[in-house]
C-alpha cells in the first residue's frame, strides 16, 4: 500500500469495494479501441493525490499481464490504461488492493477540451503580437519620426495581421453569428472597433500619418481573450470534476438467457421480460419485479427513505436502487427508456424552464452597452463632420471613441471576479458549474432542503454505543465487517477491542442478518425475531422493542439503536442562513414523523413530508410564483427535477449522478456549511462585479468626452485602457482577502483534518 492511501479503515473498504467492482464486461463496454487489439480504459480514481500514488499505481498496473501502460493524470484524477487482448486485465481489482477506489467514466467525457486549447493559442498569439507592437509603438511615442516611424508602423501592421486573423477570429465569428440572428452581444462592438481601428491605422500608415492604432486593436484582443479564457477554464474545470465523481447509474446488467447462458448487456438493450441477475452491491438498471431471491435494498436514492427495505420475490423494484445483501433475479418490466430514472430525466428537462431565461449580468450590460457605444461614435463622427467638414479628422476621432469605449474592463470584470470566487469555493470543497450560478445564488431569498442525504447523511448511525458492553460491540463489529448493509457498516466502525473470540464461519442471510460461530457458540447479528430464536421476542425485556440485536446461542446480549445522523454543521449552517435573511423550508419523501424530528432538531419551521418528485417541483414552482428566488439543496434521484426547477441548486458530492449534473454547485465535504459559504462568496462576488461594472462606466464617462473632443492620441488610449483593466483586476482580487478573513472555525478544521490524513506515514 502506498504512503497515503486511506488508512485504518482500509481492510473494510477493500472488502466493500471488491463486491462492487465493475464486471469485466462492463469495463469492456466502456473501453475504446485504439486499433488492432489495443484498448484504452479511462478510470476515475478520486483518491490519487501525490507522487507516491502515481508511482504505486503506474508500476502496479504496468506489471499486469497484457497491460501496455498506465498513465495517471493528477489534475483530473484519472488513470488511463492501455491493454491488449480480449480478456480485461484485472486493473480495477489491483487498484482496489492498493487502496484506491476506481470508477468507470462516461464515454462522452473523453476527449480533450478543444475550445480551451484554441483560446490559449489565441491568447499566446495575441500576447506575442501585442508585446511586439507595443515595443514599436513606444519608440514612436518617444519621438521616432519620418521614415523610421513609417517603418515601425508597417512592421506593426504586418504583425497585427495574423493576430487579428487568428485571435480576433473568435470575436468575429461570434459577432457575425449574433448579427445574423438579429441579436447584439459584447463581441459586436469589439469586432467593429478592432477592424475599424486596423483599417484606419493602415490608411494612416500608407499616408505617412502621425498616429496608428495597431497597438490598441491588438492589446484589446489580448485583454479580452484573457477574460474569455478564464471564464472558460472555470466552467470546464468544475464540469470535468463533477463528471469524474463516482457513477451511480448502472451501465448494464447480466442477462439470463432462456438456455441458461449469461450475457452482459448495456442498459439500452435490456427489454421488458428479460431476466436479470443482480449481485449484492449492484444497482438495479431498469424497473422490474423480483422473481427469485431475497435481499435488503437501499432505496435512498429513489425515494429518500433512509432505512433499507427488505424485499422478497414478487415485489417491484425501480431503476437506481442499490441491492445490498443477497443476489436477486429480476424480471424487467420496462425498457430503460421507460424506467423511473428516465422519468426523472424527463421531469428535469420539463422543469428546467425556470432557469433558461436567466441572462448573465455581462450579457444584460452588453445589450445596453453596445448600441450606446456605436451611437456615441456615430454622433461624434456626424458632429465633427458638420463642424469641420474634414471627414478624415471626423473618422479618426470617431474611431478613437470606439476604441476607448471598447469593453476591455467590462470583458475582464465579470470573469475575473467569478474565477477568483470559484477558486475560493474550490479550495473549500465547493465546485461551481458556471458563473451565472453565482449570480443566481446571490439573488436568493428562500432555501429549500431535502432531508435524507442532505440535512442528514443518509446513513444510519449507531446512537447507543456507550451503553453496549465493549466486548459485545467488538464481536458485533467483527461480524458486521462482512456485510455491506448500512447498519453493519455503522457497527463495523466500532471495531478495535482486542479481547473478542475469533470468528470461524461467517454467513450472511439476506433480509435477516449475519451468522457466525466463535469459541463454540453461535452468534447472530440481525433482526430480533431471527437472531433471538430462544428469547421471547414479543418486544418485552430490558432491551426494548424490535430492531437489530446481537445474540449468543439465541439469547439476546446486545441491541442496537440507529438513527440517521445529521450532516455535520447542519445546525450551524441553518443559523448562518437565517442570519443571511434566507427563509427555509424542508421537502422530503420521508414520513412526517421522521421529518418533524429533523426539523425540530435544526429549527426549521416549515416542512412538507411524503412528497413524490413532481410534488417537490410543484412546491418550488409555487414559491417561484409567489415571487421568491429559490435555492434547492438536495441529493437524491427524486430531488433531481426539483434541482432543475429551482432558481439555483446545490447538491452534495454523494448525490445521484444526474442530480449532480442538474445542480449548479456541488460540495465535496460533509459539512453543510458549504451552503452559507457559497451564498456568502456569491453575494460578495456579485457586489464586486457590480463595483467593477461601475468602475468601467465611470472610466467611460471620463474618457469618452475627452475622446469626443478629439484629444485622444494612441498613447492616451493605451494608458487609459490598461489602467481600467488593472483597476478591475485589482478590485476582483480583493475577494481573496474578504473571504479568507471570514472563513474560520469548521472549514479550516476540515482542511486541517484533510491535511493530516494526507501526511505520509
Amino acid at each position: 500500500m502506498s504512503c497515503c492511501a486511506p488508512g485504518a479503515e482500509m481492510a473494510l473498504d477493500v472488502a466493500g469495494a471488491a463486491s462492487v467492482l465493475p464486471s469485466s464486461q462492463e469495463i469492456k463496454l466502456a473501453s475504446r479501441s485504439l486499433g488492432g487489439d489495443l484498448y484504452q480504459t479511462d478510470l476515475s480514481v478520486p483518491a490519487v493525490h501525490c507522487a507516491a500514488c502515481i508511482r504505486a499505481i503506474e508500476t502496479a498496473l504496468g506489471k499486469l499481464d497484457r497491460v501496455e501502460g498506465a498513465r495517471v493524470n493528477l489534475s483530473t484524477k484519472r488513470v488511463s490504461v492501455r491493454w491488449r487482448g480480449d480478456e480485461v486485465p484485472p486493473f480495477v481489482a489491483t487498484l482496489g488492493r492498493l487502496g484506491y477506489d476506481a470508477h468507470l467514466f462516461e464515454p462522452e467525457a473523453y476527449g480533450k477540451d478543444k475550445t480551451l486549447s484554441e483560446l490559449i493559442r489565441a491568447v499566446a498569439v495575441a500576447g506575442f503580437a501585442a508585446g511586439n507592437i507595443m515595443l514599436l509603438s513606444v519608440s514612436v511615442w518617444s519621438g521616432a519620426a519620418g521614415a523610421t516611424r513609417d517603418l515601425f508602423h508597417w512592421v506593426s501592421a504586418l504583425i497585427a495581421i495574423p493576430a487579428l486573423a487568428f485571435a480576433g477570429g473568435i470575436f468575429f465569428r461570434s459577432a457575425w453569428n449574433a448579427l445574423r440572428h438579429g441579436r447584439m452581444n459584447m463581441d459586436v462592438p469589439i469586432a467593429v472597433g478592432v477592424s475599424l481601428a486596423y483599417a484606419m491605422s493602415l490608411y494612416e500608415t500608407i499616408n505617412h500619418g502621425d498616429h496608428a492604432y495597431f497597438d490598441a486593436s491588438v492589446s484589446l484582443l489580448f485583454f479580452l481573450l484573457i477574460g474569455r479564457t478564464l471564464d472558460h477554464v472555470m466552467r470546464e474545470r468544475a464540469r470535468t470534476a463533477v463528471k469524474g465523481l463516482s457513477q451511480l447509474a448502472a451501465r448494464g446488467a447480466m442477462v439470463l438467457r432462456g438456455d441458461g447462458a449469461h450475457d452482459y448487456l448495456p442498459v439500452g438493450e435490456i427489454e421488458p421480460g428479460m431476466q436479470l441477475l443482480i449481485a449484492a452491491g449492484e444497482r438495479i438498471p431498469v424497473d422490474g419485479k423480483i422473481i427469485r431471491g431475497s435481499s435488503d435494498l437501499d432505496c435512498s436514492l429513489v425515494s429518500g427513505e433512509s432505512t433499507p427495505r427488505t424485499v422478497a420475490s414478487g415485489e417491484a423494484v425501480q431503476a437506481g436502487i442499490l441491492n445490498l445483501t443477497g443476489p436477486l433475479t429480476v424480471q424487467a418490466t420496462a425498457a430503460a427508456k421507460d424506467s423511473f430514472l428516465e422519468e426523472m430525466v424527463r421531469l428535469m428537462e420539463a422543469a428546467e424552464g425556470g432557469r433558461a431565461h436567466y441572462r448573465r449580468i455581462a450579457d444584460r450590460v452588453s445589450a445596453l452597452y453596445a448600441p450606446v457605444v456605436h451611437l456615441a461614435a456615430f454622433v461624434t463622427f456626424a458632429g465633427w463632420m458638420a463642424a469641420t467638414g474634414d471627414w478624415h479628422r471626423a473618422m479618426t476621432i470617431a474611431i478613437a471613441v470606439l476604441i476607448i469605449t471598447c469593453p476591455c474592463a467590462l470583458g475582464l470584470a465579470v470573469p475575473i471576479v467569478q474565477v477568483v470566487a470559484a477558486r475560493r469555493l474550490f479550495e473549500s470543497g465547493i465546485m461551481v458549474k458556471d458563473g451565472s450560478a453565482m449570480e443566481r445564488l446571490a439573488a436568493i431569498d428562500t432555501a429549500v432542503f431535502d432531508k435524507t442525504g442532505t440535512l442528514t447523511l443518509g446513513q444510519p448511525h449507531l446512537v447507543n454505543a456507550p451503553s453496549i458492553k465493549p466486548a459485545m460491540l467488538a464481536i458485533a463489529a467483527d461480524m458486521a465487517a462482512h456485510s455491506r448493509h448500512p447498519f453493519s457498516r455503522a457497527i463495523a466502525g466500532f471495531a478495535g477491542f482486542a479481547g473478542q473470540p475469533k470468528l470461524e464461519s461467517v454467513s450472511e442471510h439476506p433480509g435477516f442478518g449475519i451468522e457466525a460461530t466463535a469459541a463454540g457458540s453461535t452468534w447472530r447479528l440481525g433482526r430480533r425475531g431471527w437472531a433471538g430464536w430462544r428469547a421471547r421476542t414479543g418486544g418485552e425485556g430490558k432491551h426494548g422493542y424490535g430492531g437489530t440485536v446481537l445474540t449468543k446461542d439465541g439469547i439476546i446480549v446486545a441491541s442496537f439503536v440507529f438513527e440517521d445522523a445529521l450532516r455535520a454543521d447542519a445546525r450551524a449552517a441553518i443559523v448562518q442562513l437565517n442570519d443571511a435573511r434566507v427563509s427555509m423550508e424542508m421537502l422530503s419523501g420521508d414520513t412526517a414523523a421522521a421529518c418533524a424530528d429533523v426539523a425540530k432538531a435544526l429549527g426549521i419551521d416549515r416542512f412538507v413530508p411524503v412528497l413524490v418528485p413532481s410534488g417537490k417541483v410543484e412546491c418550488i414552482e409555487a414559491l417561484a410564483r409567489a415571487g421568491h428566488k429559490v435555492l434547492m439543496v438536495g441529493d437524491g434521484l427524486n430531488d433531481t427535477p426539483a434541482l432543475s426547477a429551482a432558481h439555483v441548486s446545490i447538491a452534495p458530492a454523494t448525490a445521484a449522478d444526474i442530480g449532480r449534473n442538474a445542480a449548479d454547485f456541488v460540495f465535496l465535504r460533509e459539512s453543510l456549511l458549504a451552503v452559507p459559504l457559497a451564498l456568502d462568496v456569491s453575494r460578495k462576488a456579485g457586489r464586486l462585479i457590480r463595483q467593477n461594472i461601475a468602475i468601467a462606466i465611470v472610466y467611460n464617462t471620463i474618457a469618452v468626452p475627452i475622446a469626443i473632443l478629439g484629444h485622444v492620441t494612441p498613447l492616451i488610449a493605451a494608458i487609459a485602457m490598461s489602467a481600467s483593466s488593472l483597476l478591475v483586476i485589482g478590485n476582483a482580487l480583493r475577494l481573496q482577502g474578504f473571504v479568507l478573513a471570514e472563513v474560520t472555525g469548521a472549514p479550516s478544521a476540515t482542511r486541517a483534518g484533510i491535511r493530516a490524513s494526507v501526511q505520509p506515514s
Partner: protein
Amino acid sequence: MTTLVYLIPAALFLGALGLSGFLWALRSGQYEDLHGAAERILIDRDDKPER
C-alpha cells in the same frame, strides 16, 4: 536606421520562436496535467524518457 533592418527581424524571429515553442508544448499535451508534472519529478525512475 540600418541596424533596425536586421534588429527588428531578429527580435521578431526570436519572439516567434518562443511562441512556436509554446504552441508546440500546448499541442503535445504538456499542459494537461500540471499538478502531476510537479509531483512526478519526485519519482525515481530509470534515466530513460517515457514512451
